[in-house]
């Protein structure tokens, strides 16, 4: 009874540092309404809801029930999913499982976060082991800094290389009306000038060596929603559905010190599984666009190596050669990516949704200037678990 499944609708709110005009439920409602409108469906058409955020950011532990005014989930089956940074991609995967199982035809997947409502660093520390790691580590930045520090040491990477990733994503964000950080001062300047400005700016302070302000994502308030539909109804809802070709997820081990820092092991394994499922041998050539969960600049070098777009230490060459820019061979993060908006529980939903609209041809100013047949979306959870989704224009066999 397994069914093929596709994304047939996507909606999101504009990211901002603080949505003072709405509460969380109301913000969710905006995204759900946008997704329903995109698919030209009503809430009565939805068979089930999957929703996710990270409990500690808002102090709401029963979001499945709490959010029904916004989700439209009254008297529907609702499941809450929380997997840290990957929450949004896991929400999407879980909605896909609902449809692929054959049990539901139209499933709403919602991710949201109001990071402005608490202390993001204080909440993120609850993702570290209380006995062995919390006493001498804090928040998200430190862990990523340790990763970056090792990567720079191993491959002779410089802060200019990191800044190159930031510049790509933030320039792309200028094409995305929903992006949180739209840095208008960057518009029209060339890449090398922008890199020079970032690495020489005194205002661009170092937070944790080697990471400066410009190497990190913002903390964002936003919500996003996707609608998944089974093969029985997908093509009647969307003219061009974005079919789910493969999903993969890997977790490894909890303590920071036990990880293999020479690569992102979970992202590598999940990517490899997804590529095998679809028959992709040369990801750089065969994938048309990526929306990658890159929460800090150096991930845009190191993790694209782990995915298999290039060999170890070669990520910066791809960046400087423009291979990952909008007109390059494998454009990455046309939306501006996580470096431009990070409403944590929604971030993965946005990755999947932005990948889907490239296939559906609905990406507006950030639409690629070519036919997008295969799009990749990833999710990252710290410390270091990974989700991978591949979407396609052609219905899978």
């Amino acid at each position, binding site marked *: 009874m397994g069914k093929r499944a596709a994304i047939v609708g996507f909606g999101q709110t504009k990211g901002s540092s603080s949505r003072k005009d709405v509460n969380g439920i109301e913000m969710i409602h905006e995204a759900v309404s946008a997704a329903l409108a995109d698919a030209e469906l009503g809430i009565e058409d939805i068979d089930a809801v999957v929703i996710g955020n990270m409990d500690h950011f808002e102090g709401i532990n029963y979001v499945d029930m709490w959010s029904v005014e916004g989700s439209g989930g009254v008297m529907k089956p609702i499941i809450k999913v929380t997997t840290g940074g990957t929450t949004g991609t896991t929400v999407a995967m879980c909605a896909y499982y609902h449809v692929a199982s054959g049990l539901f035809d139209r499933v709403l997947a919602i991710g949201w976060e109001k990071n402005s409502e608490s202390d993001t660093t204080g909440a993120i520390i609850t993702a570290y082991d209380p006995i062995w790691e919390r006493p001498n580590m*804090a928040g998200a930045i430190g862990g990523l800094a*340790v990763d970056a520090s090792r990567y720079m040491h191993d491959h002779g990477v410089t802060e200019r290389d990191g800044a190159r990733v930031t510049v790509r994503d933030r320039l792309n964000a200028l094409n995305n009306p929903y992006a949180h950080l739209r840095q208008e001062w960057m518009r029209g300047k060339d890449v090398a000038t922008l890199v020079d400005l970032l690495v020489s700016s005194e205002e661009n302070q170092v937070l944790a060596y080697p990471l400066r302000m410009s190497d990190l994502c913002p903390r964002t308030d936003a919500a996003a929603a996707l609608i998944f539909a089974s093969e029985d109804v997908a093509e009647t809802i969307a003219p061009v559905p974005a079919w789910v070709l493969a999903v993969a997820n890997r977790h490894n081990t909890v303590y920071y010190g*036990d990880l293999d820092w020479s690569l992102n092991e979970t992202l590598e394994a999940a990517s490899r599984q997804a590529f095998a499922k679809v028959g992709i041998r040369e990801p750089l050539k065969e994938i048309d666009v990526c929306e990658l969960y890159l929460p800090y600049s150096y991930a845009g070098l190191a993790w694209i190596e782990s995915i298999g777009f290039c060999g170890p230490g070669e990520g910066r060459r791809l960046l400087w050669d423009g291979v990952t820019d909008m007109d390059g061979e494998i454009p990455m993060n046309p939306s501006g990516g996580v470096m431009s908006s990070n409403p944590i529980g929604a971030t993965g939903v946005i990755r999947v949704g932005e990948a889907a609209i490239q296939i559906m041809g609905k990406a507006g100013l950030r639409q690629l200037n070519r036919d997008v047949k295969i799009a990749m979306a990833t999710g990252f959870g710290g410390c270091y678990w990974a989700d991978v989704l591949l979407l396609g224009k052609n219905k899978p066999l």
Partner: protein
Amino acid sequence: MKDAKPTCEGRIKVPYKWFVGETGSRFFAALRDRCEIWGTRCSRCNKVYVPPVKNCWGCFQPLDEWVPVSDSGVVESFTVARCPDAMFGLDPPVVYGLIRLGKASGSLLHYIGEARPEEVKVGMRVKAVFADRRSGNILDIKYFAPVRE
């Protein structure tokens, strides 16, 4: 709208106590009482775990062999936290990193002390400095200090 209350404040404080378990307790007792660092070893894959684990996560089998591990090792990576944070009991800059001790397979996450931030490098040798008053937790190691040749 002008008179509306824009936010409602919450000050939820939920105290926790986390049980260390028998395996972790044995590690902390040796650390507290004798300033010794011990790991658990898997007989199947030969991994030596510091911090110790009760079950090998690779082989999924229980570990009952304890091995002493050197209190000196190598900095595998590090960062320098420049901003104050309530989570730290220390004033910035705070240097911490991953320290691979002796024959341990993985690293221990801990502070690096007695070194200026710009002196710290990947590959640097460091040695544990123990707290004078030890109470059976990971901060019984005060920090790791550079081994000056």
